[in-house]
């Protein structure tokens, strides 16, 4: 522990704590525009606003990156410090367009808040705003480098947390700008659309592509029959936009809101997650117990991970589960099974998905197999952030809504389906079902605690019928390489496999920390949201996917059995190696 003084108040913090963090202990908030509270991101020390003074000296330090040392005496606010901060803020403002009213971050922009807090009422310096075009080439993440304040969060998260290296800084001096490396379009870059850049951006320089107007158009078209599905992680994050406590599960209010917005049927991706488990667990059992095809099996629910693998780890394709993601399975089941049962014309059925994810916007047109129903299986993808805006546009008082239920027959879910939204959740759900498939027995305890939590790579094993199943779970794409290299090393040296089953989710924490979720993600928030999902799991009467009666009905009435010919056609996909750069 380190003992020091901040603003005359004694403070004791663990060694290595920054002045910025330590100041919070004495109820002091030091302003910063570049340091994100998310511990995955490094302090870039770019903005220069967090400067503090070593008491009695002229020396100023950056609070965001300077660890508090034993005996330090720090002043965080004095007239000189505040006036320098103000000048720096005015300088940043002089380099930023005044387009707040039409900006994707209007009302939740960190720069806007700082300028408001400092009470800046006039532009002191002449505007020097660069003229750099917008890049909306990907159709899911939009770069507006003009609004960039060069904080470096997106570059840090893209390079160091996700290991994608799509974004970098180009040029220097006043011409420095965030852009895809090589100054190509984002679509041509290695970008996997995880959207972590947009989730961490302090301003409107990187935002999700807004599809709310498109969604309204589809929804209001009386010719169309529009249904909606909601991903697991959305229910524990949406509440943040309406003042609910962190991690609060608002599933039933969300159903009510969507129904009032005009959706004909409210379905839940959690149901499709149960279907995914039926397919994926069967696939695993085939490989593990019956020696069909290679091990380890790797999960494929995450479209960013799939894109990443196709670009960077093409040699791992044989290990990939061919099961589509729950979101896509829902799309195809709506336009086949649901349409058939309700005698609806699939051409007039529209599926809108609400996802914690920007990559899902890309997944719906990933390949022709995403139109297995004969139509594009999912029509529009909205992120959690977009849904929140649509609810507000609808004039719905979300917090006061009554609880409502979802619609049959693609709504009711098991506890296994809901934990898909947290890292380790897909693995845990799959293990619950795989155990029963292999042993024919019911699990006495369905929780697999070892697969939960925020450790970057979780390695453990479970015993199924006397056989040890070795598993690894990675989240945050930079953690993937270690796991895959362990597999490659073992294969090369002909050693026993280090793992039989691997789960990967691109975003740190899994979908609860997804790129389309409300802003300000930290580990505290990831834990709270995950906790919301695990509580939802516990609250369910049915805890295993294969026990979900609606899933059983689906197979009985429509698919036959997992991995049947029909299931393969509708619910499975293929992968191909992709070039890292498309140019």
């Amino acid at each position: 522990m380190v003992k020091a003084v901040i603003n005359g108040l004694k403070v004791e913090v663990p060694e290595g704590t920054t002045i910025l963090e330590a100041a919070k202990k004495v109820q002091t908030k030091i302003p910063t525009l570049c340091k994100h509270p998310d511990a995955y991101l490094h302090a870039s020390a770019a903005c220069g606003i967090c400067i503090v003074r070593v008491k009695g000296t002229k020396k100023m330090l950056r609070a965001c990156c300077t660890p508090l040392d034993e005996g330090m005496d720090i002043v965080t606010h004095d007239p000189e410090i505040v006036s320098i901060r103000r000048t720096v803020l005015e300088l940043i403002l002089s380099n930023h367009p005044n387009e707040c009213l039409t900006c994707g971050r209007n009302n939740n922009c960190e720069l806007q808040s700082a300028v408001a807090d400092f009470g800046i009422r006039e532009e002191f310096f002449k505007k020097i705003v660069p003229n750099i075009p917008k890049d909306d080439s990907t159709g899911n993440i939009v770069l507006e480098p003009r609004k960039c304040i060069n904080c470096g969060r997106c570059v840090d998260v893209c390079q160091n947390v996700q290991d994608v290296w799509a974004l970098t800084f180009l040029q220097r001096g006043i011409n420095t700008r965030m852009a895809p490396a090589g100054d190509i379009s984002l679509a041509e870059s290695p970008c996997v659309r995880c959207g972590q850049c947009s989730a961490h951006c302090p301003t409107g320089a990187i935002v999700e592509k807004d599809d709310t107007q498109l969604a309204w158009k589809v929804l209001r078209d009386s010719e169309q029959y529009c249904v909606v599905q909601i991903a697991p992680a959305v229910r524990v994050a949406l509440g943040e936009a309406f003042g609910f406590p962190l991690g609060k599960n608002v599933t039933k209010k969300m159903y009510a809101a969507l129904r009032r917005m005009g959706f004909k049927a409210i379905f839940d991706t959690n149901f499709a997650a149960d279907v995914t488990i039926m397919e994926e667990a069967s696939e695993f059992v085939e490989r593990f117990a019956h020696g069909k095809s290679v091990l380890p099996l790797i999960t494929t629910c995450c479209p960013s991970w799939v894109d990443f693998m196709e670009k960077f780890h093409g040699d791992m394709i044989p290990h990939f589960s061919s099961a589509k993601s729950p979101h896509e399975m829902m799309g195809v089941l709506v336009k086949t099974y649901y349409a058939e049962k309700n005698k609806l014309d699939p051409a007039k059925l529209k599926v809108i998905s609400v996802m914690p994810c920007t990559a899902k916007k890309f997944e719906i047109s990933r390949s022709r197999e995403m139109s297995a129903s004969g139509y594009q299986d999912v029509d529009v993808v909205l992120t959690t952030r977009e849904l929140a805006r649509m609810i507000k546009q609808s004039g719905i008082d979300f917090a006061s809504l009554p609880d409502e239920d979802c619609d049959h027959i693609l709504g009711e879910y098991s506890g296994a389906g809901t934990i898909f939204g947290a890292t380790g959740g897909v693995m845990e759900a799959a293990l619950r079902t795989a155990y029963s498939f292999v042993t024919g027995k019911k699990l006495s305890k369905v929780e697999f605690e070892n697969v939960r939590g925020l450790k970057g790579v979780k390695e453990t094993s479970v015993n199924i019928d006397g056989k040890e199943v070795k598993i690894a779970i990675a989240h945050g794409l930079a953690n993937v390489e270690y796991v895959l290299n362990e597999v490659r090393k073992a294969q090369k040296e002909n050693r026993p496999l280090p793992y039989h089953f691997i789960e990967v989710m691109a975003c740190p924490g899994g979908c609860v920390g997804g790129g389309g979720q409300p802003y300000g993600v930290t580990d505290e928030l990831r834990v709270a949201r995950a906790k919301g999902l695990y509580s939802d799991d516990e609250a369910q009467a049915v805890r295993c996917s294969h026990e979900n009666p609606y899933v059983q009905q689906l197979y009985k009435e429509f698919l036959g059995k997992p991995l049947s010919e029909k299931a393969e056609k509708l619910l499975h996909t293929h992968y191909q190696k992709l070039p890292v750069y498309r140019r």
Partner: protein
Amino acid sequence: MGKTVFIKDTTIGGKDRTRDVYGILLGVLRERGLENNVQLVRVVDIGVYGQGVVVRVLPENFLYTHVEDADIVGIVEQSLIGGKPFAAKLVAEGARQLRIVLRNCGVIDPESIEEYIAKDGYQALAKVLSDTPEKTLQEMKTSGLRGRGGAGFPTGMKWEFTRKSPGAQKYIICNGDEGDPGAYMDRSVLEGDPHSVIEGMIIGGYAIGASKGYFYIRAEYPLAIERIEKALHQCREAGLLGKNIFGSSFSFDVEIRLGAGAFVCGEETALIASIEGKRGYPSPRPPFPSVKGLWGKPTCINNVETLANIPVILLKGGAWFAGIGTASSKGTKVFAVTGKVKNSGLVEVPMGTAIEDIVYGIGGGALAGKSVKAIQTGGPSGGVIPKEHFSTKVDYESLQQMGSIMGSGGMIVMDEDDCMPDIAKFYLGFCVDESCGKCAPCRIGGTQMLRLLTKVTEGEGTPKDLEQLEQISHAMQKASLCGLGQTAPNPVLSTLHYYRAEYDAHVKNKKCPACKCAKLVRFLIMSEKCVKCGMCFKACPVNAISGNRESGYLIDQTKCIRCGQCFEACKPRAISRS
């Protein structure tokens, strides 16, 4: 050896009487029948300036200044015949250079390791390796050597920090990314005496416990790179690099990395990022490179000039080195004296030498017909020092007190034609170009300041602009991430401090007192003085002057770019500049 006499009239302005004195001296010698015993030589430069006729007698090296014709007989009789000094005009030699860093530059063949060894090369390494690294650290601390890259951090301490940092793998880096405008001593040392830098680096490696060194040299220095490459090859052949150097347990090798043209990569953390193959962005400190540097390992970065000092210090002892210089700044410093000075070049003098001794005594003062106004030290991070303060003795602290810094040793001489806001604009423009763009105060602050200075030099400035300049300067100094941004406002602040009146003239009277700022100056031909020679017509690069030798000439103000070529070309001074 027979007698030799050097003659040079060093009078500034007026007729050069060197040939006259030569004739008189020759006559006196002939009268005495000595013309074949004495070599009489007119020289271009005699190392003394503005001291009238100067005569030097060799081999005794008697130096006579302000020699009148009447003195010549005395010099001949006393010195050339008698071998004694002619007391009436004898002067002591003025400021001289003391060469430690440049000891071998221009002396040995830089591509021959044998010539370096003949000058006691690698003796220090042999000596150091037979003792403990702690002994070397002690010696370095005794010497008081401070880093020559700019900040002046004590080298011995830097080495000790790195040695004491935990870690099996450590690195030493030679920072050869010299980039200050006008400073090129590092290039000269790398080109002229590469082995001295390599020897310094090997010794450093031994002292801090590094097994690997990197030369980071800017790619714009191809010859320096070539010579270092050759020298490294020679060292490997001779076993001075590689395993078990001199049979000791110490092994060390060196690689070269090229800088890609970014000034900021001379900053330690940016340099490390660049070697690692990343964008050359500075990073916050702590952690300091001595704790977490290259590839996350403890790393010591030393400048070229610093390393070139090391072999001599360890051969002659730290105490010897500490005996040179001032109380806080030991040893010598190489200055690159450039700009509006007679002898531009490299000068190595003991710390504590007065600026006037460097500028006038060694540099020879201003160019013909001009007078020195000020110097800029420390490159774009430094400041100006007006000629009124030239008695200042150069060392780290006193330059700082003057509002400038030592920096890497650039010393740019400015004369009466240099406009201070314009100079400030030049240096700031350099930093704005070279800003890496990472931190907001430097990236945007620098650009805004440059915009304001441009307004001032174009006569569009207001008193409020000067206030804003000071306000931004202050924020940049305190809130920029690295040295580049923190020091970039220095030239502006120091010129504002010493030459406020010049700024006021630009802002309030819309006048440029030095007649430098193109938008504020007008050239006119004064017909009453014009001799219609046509020189101005020929000199004008944009054909703004029309007329002929009968009718005279006229400057078209709409075409004139205010370059001043006609003004310089006009012998009868018939062109006015205002």
